[in-house]
């Protein structure tokens, strides 16, 4: 029994030890160093380093395209700035303002994106033409740059929301559709959906009666995202109710203060906001907190604040509060202010959502483990009934199970979040694994006793032709699914392919060696 003859068994042992280490050793595979900016893996609380996906840990997954359309190769005259283009296009598309249009000038082709919903491609096209821009084509979706920005802001929003372990990714399907996938352990669907489908554009709009004509009202957006030096924690105080405290930067403090003085908020407008709801006809002097075009709160000018605008104290200490109806709105407002607004929202009408309660996920985790073990036992029983010889059957099971251990070790090492589809893949691997071992065993024992290693080797090689051929077909059959992003199918295909590879390259040759040692040692 030299090392040279048994190197395959040794290789298997090495793989098994490495896998066991990857699964159980603390701190391996990033389990102990999580929390970095790029690590968005589910929190690890079990005795192993295995990561679990949503189906086994619970949480919400949303997969949706970005709501928007893009005109490519737009002809823009030289010297024109993106801001001007955006203004002109927005002016010619009904329901759009400059914030809904993004122009990117580049020598390789200028793009103009429109990220407001329910505008048809024709309407957008005629809007562009009316604004005097020729273009090559309009396609649904947004540019890569915009999508990257969206992913970055969403990550920010999720971490602001205190939802740990959230994950945001871009996915491109085989037919060229782009999706953003958000996975959030321990969060419910509504929470996540409102985060991703709302742009989160926050502004403060001053609404006041016009001086010469009291029945006409003016709206002036006085504060926007980016006008603030610091954004405080959402708090609930007895005097002010739920609110987010803010400090304005110098320039916006000046502008805000002079706008307040000009519009009459500091004189006749003090404490004269009569806003009740959207249909209030004569609201007086109000400061609206507007999120995505919707008024969430209307506040009147306090006497103290009005005085500080008049005597210039405000510019010295430009602190301001945005009030809301309730605490959850205040928290959401804080997230929007901190993370910035999304250039476009996600379109849930073309997407999927998935929510699984953590309690059910826990059940799934335990039950699928039991299911796997029982399936392995069924294989054991079948093999023992067939061969009646523990010398053949026992190593068969050990090898088949070690394939699963190696795969689990691999999953732990690369931090693959395990889902039900992977478990199904593991069970399928036990199935194909044992199939191949049956081929080896039958072939080796086919023509009477095995006396020498030479006879053994020639028979083993014959068996291997069939195994190799079968493995190749399985890999070919599974590979389209491993690359198509089809949710459940992808995990299953990847595990099966890996299992077949590990089997053919490591475990099944090792089984051959073990069998030879057992059969020729007489």
């Amino acid at each position, binding site marked *: 029994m030299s090392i040279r003859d048994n190197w395959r068994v040794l290789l298997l042992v090495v793989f098994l030890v490495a896998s066991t280490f990857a699964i159980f050793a603390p701190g391996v595979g990033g389990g102990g160093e999580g929390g970095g900016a790029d690590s968005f893996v589910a929190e690890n609380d079990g005795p192993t380093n295995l990561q679990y996906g949503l189906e086994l840990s619970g949480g919400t997954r949303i997969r949706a395209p970005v709501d928007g359309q893009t005109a490519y190769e737009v002809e823009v005259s030289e010297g024109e700035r993106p801001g001007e283009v955006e203004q002109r296009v927005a002016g010619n598309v009904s329901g759009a303002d400059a914030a809904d249009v993004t122009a990117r000038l580049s020598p390789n082709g200028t793009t103009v994106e429109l990220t407001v919903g329910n505008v048809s491609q024709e309407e957008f096209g005629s809007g562009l033409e009316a604004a005097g821009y020729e273009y090559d084509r309009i396609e649904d979706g947004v540019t890569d740059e915009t999508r990257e920005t969206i992913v970055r802001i969403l990550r920010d929003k999720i971490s602001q929301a205190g939802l740990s372990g959230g994950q945001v990714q871009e996915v491109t399907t085989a037919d060229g559709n782009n999706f953003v996938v958000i996975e959030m352990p321990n969060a419910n669907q509504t929470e996540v959906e409102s985060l991703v489908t709302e742009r989160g554009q926050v502004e403060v709009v001053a609404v006041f009666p016009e001086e010469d004509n009291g029945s006409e009202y003016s709206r002036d957006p006085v504060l926007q995202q980016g006008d603030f030096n610091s954004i405080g924690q959402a708090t609930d105080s007895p005097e002010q109710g739920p609110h987010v405290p803010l400090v304005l930067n110098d320039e916006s403090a000046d502008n805000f203060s002079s706008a307040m003085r000009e519009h009459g908020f500091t004189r006749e407008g003090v404490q004269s906001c009569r806003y009740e709801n959207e249909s209030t006809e004569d609201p007086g002097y109000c400061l609206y907190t507007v999120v995505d075009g919707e008024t969430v709160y209307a506040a009147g000018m306090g006497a103290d604040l009005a005085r500080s605008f008049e005597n210039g104290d405000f510019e010295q200490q430009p602190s301001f509060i945005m009030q809301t109806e309730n605490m959850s709105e205040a928290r959401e407002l804080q997230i929007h202010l901190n993370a910035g607004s999304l250039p476009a929202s996600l379109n849930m009408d073309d997407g*999927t959502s998935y929510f699984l309660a953590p309690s059910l996920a826990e059940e799934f985790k335990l039950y699928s483990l039991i299911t796997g073990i029982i399936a392995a036992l069924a294989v054991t029983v079948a093999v023992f009934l067939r061969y009646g010889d523990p010398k053949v059957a026992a190593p068969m099971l050990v090898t088949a199970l070690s394939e699963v251990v190696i795969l689990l070790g691999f999953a732990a090492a690369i931090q693959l979040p395990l889902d039900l589809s992977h478990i199904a893949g593991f069970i399928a691997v036990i199935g194909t694994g044992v199939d191949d071992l049956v081929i080896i065993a039958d072939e080796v024992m086919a023509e009477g006793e095995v006396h020498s290693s030479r006879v053994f080797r020639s028979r083993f090689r014959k068996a291997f032709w069939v195994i190799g051929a079968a493995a190749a077909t399985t890999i070919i059959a599974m590979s389209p699914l491993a690359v198509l992003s089809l949710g*459940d199918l992808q995990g299953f295909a990847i595990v099966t392919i890996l299992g077949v590879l590990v089997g053919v390259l490591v475990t099944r040759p090792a089984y051959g060696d073990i069998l030879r040692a057992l059969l020729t040692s007489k």
Partner: protein
Amino acid sequence: MVAFEVPEVDYTKYTNRQLAAVPLAVLALALLILAGWYVTTGAPVALGTEFTGGTELRVQTATPSDELSDQFDAEVVSISPVQTADDTYIVTFGPDAENVGDQARNNLQPVEGQSEDDMVKSVQGTSASFGQNTQRLALYGLGVAFAGMSVLVFLMFRTFVPSIAVVISAFSDIVIPLALMNVLGIDLSLGTVAALLMLIGYSVDSDILLNNHILRRSGDFYESTYRAMQTGVTMTVTSLSAMAVMALVAYVFGIDLLASIGIVLVMGLAADLMNTYMLNLSLLRWYKYEGVAQ
């Protein structure tokens, strides 16, 4: 000890026609079912919400099942109780349903001792257009996988009859479970598509083994067949028992994905036993004794 032995079948008693007739008749029947389904419903198989769009809600509630559908704004397509969990139902909605999770939390009665948040066990929503997309991708994946397998088989054997025999039995191995799914009322989901693909791998295993023994080994046709059968039947029966147990246990535990993968594989593997040792075998015997001679 009850040992399981692979029985030796006396193939000389049957003609090739007789042998091939049974699996071909079953295949024809399966195709007929699929065609009939296509004519009546517009799709060859019953598609799950992942492909058609819609929302599947799993709730545990004290509200009786016949009052469930009144609690939601959207139209309820179906309500089925989960066998293994008390007061738990899977409620399916059409593609237009919105916020069913919230409606469930607000309108349904929690079971005693349960918080309102805990009623909703899972919500899985797919929009119609996304479902369409998934449907196309899955079909495309299945097609590419099958074509890739066929090309590989032809490259390995380099002769027409044995190769086409493998491809036909793999095709039949997929079509028969598909038809049976319609009969048993199992919807096509991503999980069952995965199982159908796995069948390509499993079914080709035993076909390749049989072809290899008959074409590449010396020895009598029937002797080679018997040896291939001993190995091949053991393989298939082992997998079959693993999958049957998996389907049963997963069904009891209520893990639908694993249960449907298991059931489809059991049906496919059973079909494979028939196809390999009747259809494929008769084609090989014809090829060996008559096809080559011509």
